[in-house]
């Protein structure tokens, strides 16, 4: 057992207090146990009570035990290295600390009692040392410290007590008090005196020491936080702090304030300072967390704190304790050896928030680039290897998170994080609750945006009812069912809390249960006793409670519209008689209900269709007639208009036509007309007949429509009048004649040109003398005839007036009316008609009185406009072409002779015979080798333009072979001493054949002689002359002595077999030219330069363009 455990400064302090006051209450801070010692305001003994402590037992005053080791322990605590921080604190305590004598008596009586129970206190408590210095974990030992734990307050008490201890009155109060018995025996004064002196001296020395100590201890007694521990919560980026303070002995709880400092990277770099206020209870271990914006893995953090009593129980002033030592939180040590780290990982944030990310590189030399969704981002370098990026107002990109990654350049290292951005949790909308049966309350709401993310808990909804205190977790995101336990609870106050990992939103609703009744949908809706005009509706509802009444709404719908609406209050079964229905009509009965007492919502609707029964048609048919004479017998055609659905009251099955002879009693003649017909024809005689027409359905006939006809057509000689049409139709008026008419009928035809003309009529009352006849069939330019009949009381129709007119007369100047003044003229030419148009013609005579009756129009369609033009142009062209073709055909031989005569074969030429006959060695047909070229020119001349002969100095090497390439062998050089003149005619047409023959003809020929001399030259002299002349004419610069000639020509005939290679610009002389001689050589023969001795004449293949000199 350590000395600290056997000796308590707290107990000693009590002893000192008692020593000073001699009347220390046993339990000064607990009135029931204080034995009459009144307490101070904060539980401390009141000063007055302490001074009047005679009532307190004195036997315990001297019952203490003291030992120096305890003092040494006390001192060692004061100077312990670990508490060195208190040094400066001590020095800050003002030396003249105020003394409150009232508190001098405030010794810990409870501790004393506790120590007494332990059997140690009375022996060991000699003084009342500063209890805060005790480190003993035993409660009784720590109790005084708790008394002083509030800091400045406890320091005051200690000071007071020490001062009290120093007071003379307190030094030996038991002895000085009169009447008190001395504890020493009276019969042995010396030893006792010595003992008393020794004791007094000892006590004085001790008190001196205590006084010295008290000077040292004149300082507050703050409760410095102890055992501070800092840990890192990487998932949430929290620095979790845990610390403790000494237990409170005299207080159940004490409000304290803790000031916390957080540094980053190094302790001097304080990044956050804040206070944390809390109520400290007995044996407290306190926790507090700090959330870091910067991921904690990227930087080392340091934490320290100090405390202060912040409780009203402790009077002012209050002092801060000393700072605790710095505690380091370093998450980098556990990261491993990867070259790159990126934090925070998998962070979940709400859309729109700010996020700080950081990377940490192991190698400072690495060049690191970071990207947010592929876009490079640049951050702030916190350290040589740590950089941070702040992302402001992050937005939701995808549910799988926003990808942020960093790469080490030139290395295949990539590290990334996924930032999960959640949608903002919305407050539930349209939150309401209702019941259908007073057993279950169903609450519904609109959850708004879904904030759930994959692999993350979705938002949840909790329903809390404040009156009952119950709470349930809702299974669905938009509804929740609440069981109504009993009828006792009428009011409900629901709070719906939407919550996700980032926060919560709530909404409340307060209501009375009876005001939220939403009845169930009625059922068993039936129609019974359905007649033509009435029907009974029955339905049932689900009962709501025992006394609830439902208000049901019964709608009668026809063709989708609500026709009738009735409200019925019922308990369980509903019934209503619908009336004023239309026969043979489909209706729909629809019922919904609501709480009759407190309307909240209509229930769902139930509906049922039904059709009322048929009834007899309610109106007579609208009947008209047309009387005409067929084969001398009057034939009456009856027309009627079908009854409307409103009046038919059912499906019309047939029409009955009853004919009654008014002149003779011949009985009734009944005709049944099918329902599909709207008229019938009756053949009558000259008698008068009364005709009844009725429509029949399954319920019966309609009222009869009566009309009387007579074989006498009556007065048809009524003058026709003109009537003008308007936009609304024809305005027809008439003058009553008899004054006994029961009505009038206006009759006309919608299509007067057609047969039948679609007879129309209009019934008018007897007091009507005008009406407007309108019809959609009326067209402008059509003449319409109107006949007005008067219906007599006998229901006989008499023609009253006739009218005729146009709805709109078309413009005469345009096209439509031409006046032909010559009565003898029987033809008329209409001009300026549009092609491919339809015209209608009508010719009517006119006199000075007016125009005659209009007959039917005749339709004419004008032909296409261009066909005439085309015929006028194309036809002559075709004729011309035909003529030309025929002419060409007939004159083909002539054309051939003129344009492309046959080219004679040189071998068959008469010249040969002439030469042979003269035996002229110079004039012969020579082979290719005989022609000695002096120059070769190769010309690419696709356009067929003329190519000039080059000079003799043109060498072969200066030319180029192109395709087609042409080789020209020019006349021999001046010094050429070869054979005589050589003329070479060639024609590519015969190129191949000539090549095969390998010969070339050399005949001097003059162009002038060619056309007129189809045959060979008759003599060599002529030939030579012709050659010379031609050559001199064509090559004027050539010296006269150069006898060698070379004629290069060709026949550029379009009839050549090689048509494709014909030049575009054929030379003129080619046409209709004649050649008497020719030669041709293949290209292969012409290519190599001929030897000088190969011959005089030169040959060359020519293209089909002209090379003519």
């Amino acid at each position: 057992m350590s000395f600290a455990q056997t000796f308590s400064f707290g107990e000693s302090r009590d002893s000192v207090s008692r020593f000073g006051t001699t009347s220390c209450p046993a339990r000064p801070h607990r009135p029931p146990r204080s034995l009459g010692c009144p307490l101070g305001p904060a539980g401390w003994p009141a000063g007055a009570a302490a001074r009047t402590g005679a009532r307190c037992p004195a036997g315990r005053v001297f019952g203490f035990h003291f030992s120096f080791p305890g003092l040494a322990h006390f001192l060692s605590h004061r100077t312990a290295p670990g508490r060195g921080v208190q040094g400066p604190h001590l020095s800050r305590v003002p030396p003249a600390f105020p003394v409150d004598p009232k508190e001098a008596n405030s010794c810990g009586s409870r501790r004393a009692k506790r120590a007494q129970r332990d059997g140690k206190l009375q022996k060991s408590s000699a003084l009342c040392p500063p209890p805060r210095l005790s480190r003993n974990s035993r409660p009784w030992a720590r109790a005084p410290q708790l008394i002083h734990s509030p800091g400045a307050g406890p320091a005051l008490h200690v000071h007071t007590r020490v001062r009290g201890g120093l007071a003379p009155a307190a030094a030996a109060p038991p002895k000085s008090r009169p009447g008190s018995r001395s504890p020493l025996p009276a019969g042995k004064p010396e030893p006792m005196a010595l003992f008393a002196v020794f004791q007094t001296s000892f006590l004085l020395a001790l008190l001196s020491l205590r006084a010295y100590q008290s000077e040292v201890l004149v300082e507050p007694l703050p409760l410095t936080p102890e055992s501070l521990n800092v840990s890192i919560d990487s998932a949430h980026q929290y620095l979790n702090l845990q610390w403790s303070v000494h237990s409170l002995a005299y207080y159940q709880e004490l409000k304290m304030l803790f000031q916390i400092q957080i540094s980053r990277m190094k302790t001097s770099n304080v990044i956050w300072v804040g206070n944390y206020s809390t109520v400290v209870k007995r044996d407290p271990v306190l926790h507090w967390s700090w959330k870091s914006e910067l991921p904690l893995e990227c930087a080392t953090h340091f934490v320290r704190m100090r405390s202060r009593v912040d409780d009203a129980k402790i009077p002012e002033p209050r002092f801060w304790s000393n700072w605790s030592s710095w505690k380091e939180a370093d998450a980098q040590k556990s990261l491993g050896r990867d070259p790159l780290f990126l934090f925070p990982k998998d962070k979940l944030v709400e859309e729109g928030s700010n996020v700080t990310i950081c990377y940490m590189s192991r190698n400072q030399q690495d060049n690191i680039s970071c990207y947010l969704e592929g876009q490079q981002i640049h951050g702030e370098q916190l350290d040589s290897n740590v950089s941070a990026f702040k992302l402001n107002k992050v937005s939701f990109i995808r549910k799988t998170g926003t990808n942020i990654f960093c790469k080490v350049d030139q290395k295949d290292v990539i590290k990334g994080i996924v930032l999960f951005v959640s949608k903002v949790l919305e407050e539930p909308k349209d939150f309401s609750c209702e019941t259908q049966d007073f057993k279950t309350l169903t609450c519904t709401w609109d959850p708004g945006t879904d904030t759930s993310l994959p692999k993350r808990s979705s938002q949840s909804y909790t329903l809390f009812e404040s009156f009952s205190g119950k709470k349930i977790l809702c299974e669905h995101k938009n509804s929740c069912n609440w069981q109504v336990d009993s009828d006792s609870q009428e009011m409900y106050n629901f709070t719906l809390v939407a919550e996700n990992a980032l926060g919560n939103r709530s909404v409340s609703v307060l209501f009375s249960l009876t005001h939220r009744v939403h009845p169930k949908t009625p059922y068993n809706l039936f129609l019974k006793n359905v007649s033509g005009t009435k029907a009974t509706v029955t339905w049932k509802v689900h009962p709501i409670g025992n006394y609830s009444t439902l208000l049901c709404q019964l709608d009668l719908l026809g063709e989708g519209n609500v026709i009738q609406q009735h409200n019925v209050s019922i308990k369980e079964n509903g019934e209503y008689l619908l009336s004023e229905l239309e026969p043979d009509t489909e209706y729909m009965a629809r019922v919904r209900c609501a709480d009759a007492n407190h309307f909240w919502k209509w229930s769902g609707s139930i509906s049922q269709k039904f059709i009322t029964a048929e009834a007899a048609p309610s109106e007579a048919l609208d009947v008209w007639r047309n009387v005409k004479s067929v084969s001398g017998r009057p034939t009456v055609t009856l027309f009627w208009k079908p009854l409307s659905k409103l009046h038919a009251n059912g499906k019309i099955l047939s029409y009955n036509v009853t004919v009654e002879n008014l002149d003779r009693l011949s009985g009734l003649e009944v005709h049944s007309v099918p329902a599909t017909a709207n008229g019938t024809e009756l053949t009558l005689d000259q008698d008068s007949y009364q005709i009844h027409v009725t429509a029949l359905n399954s319920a019966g006939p309609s009222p009869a429509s009566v009309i009387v006809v007579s074989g006498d057509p009556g007065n048809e000689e009524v003058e026709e009048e003109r009537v003008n049409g308007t936009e609304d139709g024809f305005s027809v008026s008439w003058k009553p004649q008899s004054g006994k008419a029961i009505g009038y009928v206006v009759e006309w035809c919608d299509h007067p040109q057609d047969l039948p003309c679609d007879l129309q009529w209009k019934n008018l009352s007897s007091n009507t003398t005008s009406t407007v006849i309108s019809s959609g069939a009326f067209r402008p330019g059509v003449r319409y005839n109107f006949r007005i009949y008067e219906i007599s009381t006998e229901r006989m129709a008499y023609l009253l007036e006739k009218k005729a007119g146009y709805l709109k007369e078309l413009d005469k100047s345009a096209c439509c009316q031409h006046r032909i003044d010559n009565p003898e003229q029987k033809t008329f030419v209409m001009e300026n008609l549009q092609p491919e148009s339809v015209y209608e013609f009508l010719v009517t005579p006119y006199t000075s009185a007016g125009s005659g009756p209009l007959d039917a129009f005749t339709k004419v369609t004008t032909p296409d406009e261009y066909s005439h033009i085309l015929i006028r142009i194309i036809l002559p062209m075709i004729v011309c072409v035909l003529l030309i073709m025929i002419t060409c055909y007939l004159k083909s031989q002539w054309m051939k002779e003129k344009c492309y005569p046959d080219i004679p074969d040189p071998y068959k030429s008469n010249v040969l015979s002439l030469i042979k006959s003269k035996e002229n060695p110079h004039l012969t047909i020579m082979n290719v080798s005989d022609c000695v070229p002096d120059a070769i020119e190769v010309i690419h001349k696709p356009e067929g333009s003329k190519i000039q002969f080059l000079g003799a100095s043109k060498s072969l090497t200066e030319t180029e072979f192109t395709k087609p390439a042409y080789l020209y062998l020019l006349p021999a050089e001046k010094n050429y001493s070869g054979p005589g003149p050589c003329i070479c005619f060639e024609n590519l047409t015969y190129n191949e054949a000539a090549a095969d023959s390998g010969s070339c003809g050399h005949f001097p020929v003059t162009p002038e002689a060619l056309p007129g001399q189809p045959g060979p030259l008759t003599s060599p002299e002529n030939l030579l002359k012709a050659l010379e002349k031609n050559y001199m004419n064509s090559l004027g610069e050539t010296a006269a002595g150069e006898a060698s000639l070379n004629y290069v020509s060709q026949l550029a005939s379009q009839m050549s077999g090689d048509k494709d290679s014909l030049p575009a610009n054929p030379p003129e002389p080619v046409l209709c030219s004649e050649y008497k001689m020719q030669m041709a050589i293949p290209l292969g023969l012409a290519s190599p330069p001929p030897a000088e001795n190969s011959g005089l004449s030169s040959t060359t293949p020519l293209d089909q363009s002209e090379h003519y000199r």
Partner: protein
Amino acid sequence: MRPQLVQRTLLSLVLGLLFLSTAATGKCSGKYHELLQQLQSQADLMQDTSTLLDPYIHFQGLDQAGLKEHCKESPGAFPSEDTLRGLSQRGFLRTLNATLGHVLHRLTALQQDLTIAQDQGRNIRGFRSNIHCMSQLLRGSSEVETAEPTQPGPEATLPPTPSSDTFQHKLQGCRFLRGYHRFMHSAGQVFKEWADSRSQSRSRRHRPPRALQRGARRMRPFRRDERLMPRGQLPR
């Protein structure tokens, strides 16, 4: 007593044959060519990255510059094509089956991220069913049961569980799917060689093609198995 015993025996025999017949016809096709063609077609379908990998990359947001290049198949995650070629037919099927089993397991985890993984899972199950049928066909044709170890599949090399780091998880999933598609491509190539060698074996009785000879050298077990096929059941 004896006639009853005979009757019971016959009845049992008939019922047993009926059951076997039903099971055989209901489960697997006995036609080698059909099965092989189906396997080829399925492998072709499953190697298509548009069925799984491309949607995954898009869904996870990995279709960004700087990320795509890191979605490469992890070396050794799936057996290489050469490894597959070196296996016997049945060894190849076993490896294929085992690998796809692990792929299925992994796809199950991916289903949370990618709904179409479910469809691909069905494809894999169908493919494995055909593998099973092909194995049965080959087993039925083998006279000697040869034990051949399955080649190390993804079970040994694939990351067994996704990392807690979601970003790495995404990349691992991407690499895994790329490897899967490559693996199915390789499997399809092997099946194609099966078909080619089958058709060429008919014509190479006189002169086998050089390429086939090379393949035959690599596929010695395959030739051994092939030799063991019954003539009536498998094509030659």
